[in-house]
Structures are given as C-alpha cells and as structure tokens.
C-alpha cells in the first residue's frame, strides 16, 4: 500500500474563502478507509470547518495515535504538518508540541481504542492540564484495523459481528472529559454534518481543552443489528440538546428562531456561539447539571449530542505555566543562554 495523491483539478468556480483557498486546498490524499466509513465524514467536516473559519492550513498541526481514526489526518489538511505517533500517546505528543509553540492550532485525532483503552491515562491527563487543542475521538466501539474486537467504549450487551456479547461496562469519554475539567465538551454523530461542522468550528475557536466525541459507525465491523454504534441505532437514539452556529465576528441574526430558543455565548476571542436550544432546560455552561443530565439520558438509553459544556473563559496550560507570549521554539541564543559572566557567578558560589 502506497499513498495516493489526490488530483488537484477542480471546478474553476469553486468558492474561495477570505484567504483565497478553496475547500480542495484543505484536503489531503485519498482515503484508504473502507467505503462508507464514518471517519471519512469527520475528515470532510474538519475540512469544511477549517475552510469556513478561513484558517491558514499550515498553522494547524494535526496529531494522532494509531488505528483507523489515527490514519485520517493524512486525508485532510495536506498543507499542515502531521504526526502519526504511538498508540494511545497522541495526547502527550500534542501536549509537548503545544508547549513548544503556543501559536499553532492543535488538532488531535484519536479513536476509542486509542483514547479509551490503551490511551485512557493520557486522554485524562491532557484534559486536566487544559491543553489548548481540539481533541476528536472518532468513536466506533470497535478495533477496525485488527478486525472487529470490542473497544472500551462498546456498550455492555452489544453484539460483535461474529455474535460475541460484550460483558464489560463502557467507558463514557464525554462523562470523563466533563469530570476531568475539559472546558469544551461535545458529542456528535458522523452522519450529522450540520451538527458536527459548527461544533468543530466552535472547538477550534475555544482557547482551552476542547473535546468532541464523534460516534462514527464502522461499516465493516460494527454496523449490524445488536451493535449500539451502528448508523441505524445512533439515528434512532440520538437526542440533540442544541444546534449551534459560530459567528466571527458578530453577525446579525438572519435565521428565524422562535423566541426564547436562542442563546448566545461570547467566547474570549470575541467570537459568538449561537445555540438553538432543542432540549428545554439544557444549560451548557452548567457543568454539574450537564453531568447529571447525561447520566439520566444515558440510563434512558439515549445518546445525547450537541454542545454539552462550554466554559466561555477558559484557562489553558500556557496560562498555568506562565510562559512568554513568544513561542518557545522561536527563542534565540540571547534569550536562552545565560553566558559566561553568569557562569562565573555560579562557579564562585560553588567554592
């Protein structure tokens, strides 16, 4: 298997964004995932979000672990640096990269095996440190590359393609992210582009640890009756709490909303997230109630999606570390090396 470059030809009238780029400029090489894989829809959503936000592709760093989901960064943002790291360890690599240069946008792509099984520890710790990033888990409940073993997010009682029943309790990454202090937590479905694209946009604009759990059915190994991560099952049990639009800068409301159903949340950078409420009392800025609500709906067998929690004034790792504004990787000799005079003083104090 060798890479397949995507032809550069495109329709001459493809729309461009403020940077003059078309959507095609945000694409990568041809996907080698199975036809119909949910992950490809997520890649498309990432491309759409970056295009819509007018992001210079080279200012995004995309990092992943190992697995089907972790292969996807090759299939979007071909002009971005990418890093396909070690199974379950993307969070630490991303954390280090972020420490080195606070000016780039960090997009971590992982899967349920990568983040909930082997990488659960690193998943937890990078969220509790408040690393400024977008962390997307492409969650299909199954190990695809090794052909169909259950992952740690598979629901208890769900059936594998071969008929085995999962007896382990599932790990709920959204619940964990809320508990661990992520400042942006969302869940979506790869089959719902209208919901997913604005969530990714909002997560990119968020200056803190943003986590999106995207249920992304595996067409090869986990899309059969008895699976709780199949297209049919997710569509039947999806309960979206809100729909959102992302505005930069503030734009007048053009869509028609029923009174009392829209809520605006201003982010620190001035961008506005406009939420169309679908569930009556859902308040996405109340972390404790969000946790309780999720637990309730989960017990009722529903899969809650939407923007589940947002801290509009997040702090990030660089705030905590009090690092200089200039990226550490751009500091030069004069800023880093104390020199011989300082060393003479050090020597004197050691005699």
């Amino acid at each position, binding site marked *: *298997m*060798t*890479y397949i470059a995507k032809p550069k030809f495109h329709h001459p009238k493809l729309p461009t964004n403020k940077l003059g780029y078309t959507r095609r400029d945000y694409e990568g*090489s041809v996907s080698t995932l199975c036809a119909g894989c949910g992950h490809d829809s997520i890649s498309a959503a990432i491309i759409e979000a970056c295009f819509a936000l007018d992001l*210079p*592709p*080279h*200012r995004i*760093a995309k*990092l992943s672990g190992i697995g089907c989901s972790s292969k996807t960064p*090759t299939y979007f943002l071909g*002009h*971005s*640096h*990418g*890093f*396909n*790291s*070690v199974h379950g*360890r993307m*969070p*630490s*690599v*991303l*954390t*280090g*990269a*972020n*420490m*080195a*240069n606070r000016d*780039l946008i960090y997009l971590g792509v992982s899967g349920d095996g990568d983040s909930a099984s082997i990488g659960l*520890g*690193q998943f*937890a*710790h990078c969220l509790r440190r408040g690393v400024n990033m977008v962390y997307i888990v492409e969650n299909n409940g199954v190990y695809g590359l090794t052909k169909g073993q259950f992952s740690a997010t598979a629901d208890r009682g769900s059936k594998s393609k071969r008929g085995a029943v999962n007896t382990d309790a599932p790990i709920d990454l959204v619940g964990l992210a809320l508990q661990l202090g992520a400042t942006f937590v969302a869940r979506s479905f790869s089959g719902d582009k209208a919901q997913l694209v604005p969530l990714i946009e909002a997560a990119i604009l968020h200056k803190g640890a943003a986590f999106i759990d995207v249920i992304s059915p595996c067409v090869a190994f986990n899309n059969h009756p008895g699976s709780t991560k199949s297209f049919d099952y997710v569509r039947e049990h999806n309960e979206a709490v809100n729909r959102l639009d992302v505005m930069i800068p503030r734009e007048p409301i053009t869509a028609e909303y029923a009174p009392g159903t829209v809520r605006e949340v201003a982010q620190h950078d001035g961008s506005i997230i406009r939420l169309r409420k679908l569930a009556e009392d859902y308040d996405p800025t109340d972390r404790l109630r969000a946790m309780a609500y999720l637990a309730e709906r989960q017990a009722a067998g529903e899969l809650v999606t939407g923007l589940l929690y947002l801290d509009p004034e997040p702090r990030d790792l*660089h705030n905590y*570390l*009090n*690092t*200089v*504004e200039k990226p*550490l*990787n*751009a*500091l*030069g*000799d004069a*800023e*880093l*090396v*104390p*020199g*011989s005079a*300082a*060393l003479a003083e*050090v*020597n004197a104090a*050691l*005699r």
Partner: protein
Amino acid sequence: MPKLIESTNDFVVRFANVNGSGSASANALFAKSILRMGVPIAARNIFPSNIQGLPTWYEVRISGAGWLGRRGGCDLMVAMNPQTWDKDVASIDPGGYLFYDSTRPIPPSKFRDDVHVVGVPLTEICNARYTDARQRQLFKNIIYVGALAQLLGIELGAVEKLIGEQFKGKDKLIEPNVEALRAGHDWAAANLAPIGLKVRRADAVGDRILVEGNNAAALGAVYGGATVCAWYPITPSTSMAEAFQRWCRRFRVDPETKKNRFAILQAEDELASIGMVIGAAWNGARAFTCTSGPGVSLMQEFIGLSYFAEIPAVIFDIQRAGPSTGMPTRTQQCDILAAAYASHGDTKHVLLFPEDPRECFEFGAAAFDLADRLQTTVFVMSDLDIGMNEWLCRPFEWDDKRRLDRGKVMTYEDLEAGREFGRYLDVDGDGIPYRTYPGTHPTKGSFFTRGTSRDRYARYTEEGGPYVDNMQRLLRKFETAKRLVPGPVRRDASEPTRYGVIYFGSTSPAMAEALAALEQRGLHLDAMRVRAFPFSDEVIDFVLGHDQVFLVEQNRDAQLKSLLVNEGAIDPARIISVLHYDGTPITARFIIDEIAERMAALNVVPLKKAVP
C-alpha cells in the same frame, strides 16, 4: 592494640546517621570547611529508600593528593545511629577512631580493642543549652561538627564563614549555629586528647568547584537552550528536574514581563514525559526528560519512534541499581545496553558518558546540539554517584561565541527560494536530512511524520525498497555521529606496554588513582576513557593495539564490553572485564586488586619492584 593510624590530609571519615535527623547539612558543612582549607575532598551519601528513620551514611575522603574516588575503609567513624552501631564499629580500619555520643553509657563489649574511642557527651551538652526538641536534634549535629573541627584541626573560622554563607538572608540563624559549633569545639578542647588524624591547610583545591552532577546537568540543559522539560519523579534523577526549575527561575524569566522562557511539566508517567519531549522537539523546541533505568524501560516504544521519525530528544539517564525500591538508591552503570539498543526494530542511539559534574554540564549542553544535528535521541548516561553527590571538579566554562546548533532546518526563506525539500532526502551524503518546523510556510515544506513507512519525501509507502533505503541512510547517519560525539581520552603509560584499560563515567577518579598505584607497582597500562557511543575508530584501534584490555564497569553483565565486541567486531577474549556492582561506588583498591591479580595470572613481570 595496634598502632593508631596517623595521617595528615589523607583519611576517611564516615558519619552514621539517622535519615531525616538534619545531619546532611551538618555533614556537608564539615566537608566543605576542609575544602576551604585548600584540601581536596570527595564526599558521598549512602542513603536508604526512606524519608525518615532509616540509617544513612555520609563518607568524606580527605585527600591532599587529590584522589577523589571512593577509597574504601574508614579511619574515623562518627557513630550517631544506635541502630547500626555494631556494623559501624566493625567497619573501622584497625588502629582507627570511633567518635560517639557518650551521654549514655555503652557496655564495653560494644567497643573494639583495636580502635581508639573518642566519647563526647553530645546530648548532654545539647540538652543543657536547648529545650526545644527539634533544636536539640539539629544543634546536636552542629555540636559534633565543632568537636570534630577541634579534634582534626579544622579552622573554626572556615566553618563559621560557611555558616554565615549558608544562612545569608536568614541572619538570625547564624549566631545560634555558631554558638553550637563553639560549644562542641570548646568541650573538645577542654576534654579530649589529640588524635592521629589531622587536616592541615594546603593549596591543592585551586579554582575547583563542589557540585552535584544533577545540578550541573540541569545547568547544562539551560545553557544548551532547553525550553521544555517533561519528567516523572524517580530516584536518582528527580533532583535534576528540580534543579532545572531553580536555574530557569534564575536565568529564564523575562525581566520585563516576568513570564517564563521555559515550560516544565511533571507528567503522569515516563511514557507521557518522553511523548511530550518528542512532541516539543518535533515542533522545534529543545526538550528533555530526566529519568533512570525503569523510566527508560517504559519509554522504549517512543524512543524507537524518535529514532525512525528522526526527532531530536534528550534523555538524561541517572543510572542506579534496580528494579523496585532499596537498591535503587545505590549507584550502578547498568543501563548501557538498554539505552544503546532501546526499543523495537533495528535501532541504536547516541550515548554520552560524563565522568563528573563538570562533564554533566558540558555534555548536558552538547547533547542538545548533537540531538538537533543528528535528529535523533541522545542519552546522557550519568549515575547516582555523580548525580546525587557533590564532586570536586574543574569549574564550568562557556564560550560566549558559541551558538546553539539547530542542525539542518529549512526556513521560510529557503523554501521560498525554491530549495528542494524532502524530509528524508540525504542531500549532503552524511545521512542527515533537512527538516522543517510545523507552521513554517503556507504551501511548501509540510510533511507527515510517521515511523518507517515512508519514502524520501515522507509520503506513505509500505514497499520494501524505500524501507531498506531509509534504514541504510539511518546507518550512514550513525556513522556521522561517530565524528560528532565527544572523542575518547587516552592516557598512555610511562613505559610501553601490551596492556590497556578502558573505563567510563563515574569510574574515572578511582581509575586515575588505581593507575598511579599500579604504575608504582611496575604494572603499566595504557588507559582510555570512553566518552560516547557510537565508538570512534580510536576506541577500536586501542583494543586492537593491545594484547589484553581490561574494561572496568559498574554492572554485572559487562555491558560496555558487549557493546564494544558487537559494534567493533572484536574478539571477546581480548577484553577482560573488571566488574563492580554491589551498589557502592567503585574504589581504587578494588580496581588495583582486580587488575594486579589478573596481570599476575597473565605472568606480567613488573618492570620494577613494588614500592614498599
């Protein structure tokens, strides 16, 4: 009663204390005051895996001749720990001295006939002056320093000056400490007869400094331009991360904004530490972690990734015995093979072997240049003996003309000018490709980083040809490394000889002393101190140029020998291992005995009679 030991500026004092009793700073005061009198010392801690309550020892070798290895034996035991009394008393050389707290009577059976006993009622003197329990404990230590100073002829002024420096800024502590010191001193002057051990002012220290290797390595990392440190606590490396933090607070805070030109993260484990280092280094910052053998074990997968993805990473391995706790607070050179061939697949890594804190500083800085230049992982192989003990060594030096060597990095201008960029393209024939930092150019120079499955332009491929091509280039790069790493230091014997000895790292001071003593006995050996892996041709030539070469190591399995035999395609029979691995630092006595015995077995006739 044998003849009592009489010696000036050449003896060993061992303090037996209880961990957590505040003895460490008093003992250091004792050691440093001798240094201030111009007499070289070597001081070592032997401590338990414990914070409070277990036995701990501090050994000071006073050596006017300047031998800084551990000598072995004990001439004066300062026995402050009842728990280890019997063992401590038994460890004194015949004719030596026992210093103890005589407040409570100790049955005569607990002493030795062949040891001179010096009793000082420390508790009594102390309790008469202080009522607070913690004060009593702390000042008791200073009182024994005072008494020892009088007994050994250490200048009180030197000790008092040190106390003044130590408590600078907390001035109200100076007076009570000086008083306690004098209380011990005065009691000794009034009640004790002189003993045979003396310190006499000399001029043998010069401009040398006394510093711990971990502290020096951390300073080296600052001078080497490291900005990111990710680490996980593990003895004996923890103090390096802590020292890095201290040096950064001193040298790396922007004076105007008070913001940090560094980022230090205590990770959740060693896997995360090395992951962060690799992420930061991939992104163009200089990054390191400090750890010990078990940490290196945990980092294996990532180390392989850094080798194949060609990401500069610096790992300080402060070696210790292992695993678990207990022996891990003792020193060894036991991670050589684990580091050299760390990880899965065909990998090898650059190792540097500092001999003392001075080289910890030097190599600590150089490691970052090497890692960037070679785009690979570089290990600095220190150990507990160097890392956690204060060593007397040449002062740190820095050339202000020196610049950080960031290696082959293509800039925006390079790319804009149309220079061809292939991430794994060997344009210069040295096996080292160019890299770009993420975010450099909007349309040129981006690439996808992964392990081995890529071609010269970093495009995904699973084909055999490009894989082999890449693996061969990595070998060329390792050849290039031989020219860039610190070369070996060779010291030939005064007479031509067919015998050689190779050593490295913390064995250095004991080896220097052993070589001098062997030469005195007419046993001549050319010596080579190996300072890095890959081995340069000089090292291989040295082995091939002698009939027999001794290789002195502080591990059981002769790890450096294995590496040398393997990499140099050398006949193992040419190399005779001298192995010391009981957890204590190797001594000159051990090396002399081992080599002299083996040379006798090889029928080497001394060129001159041994000096009696």
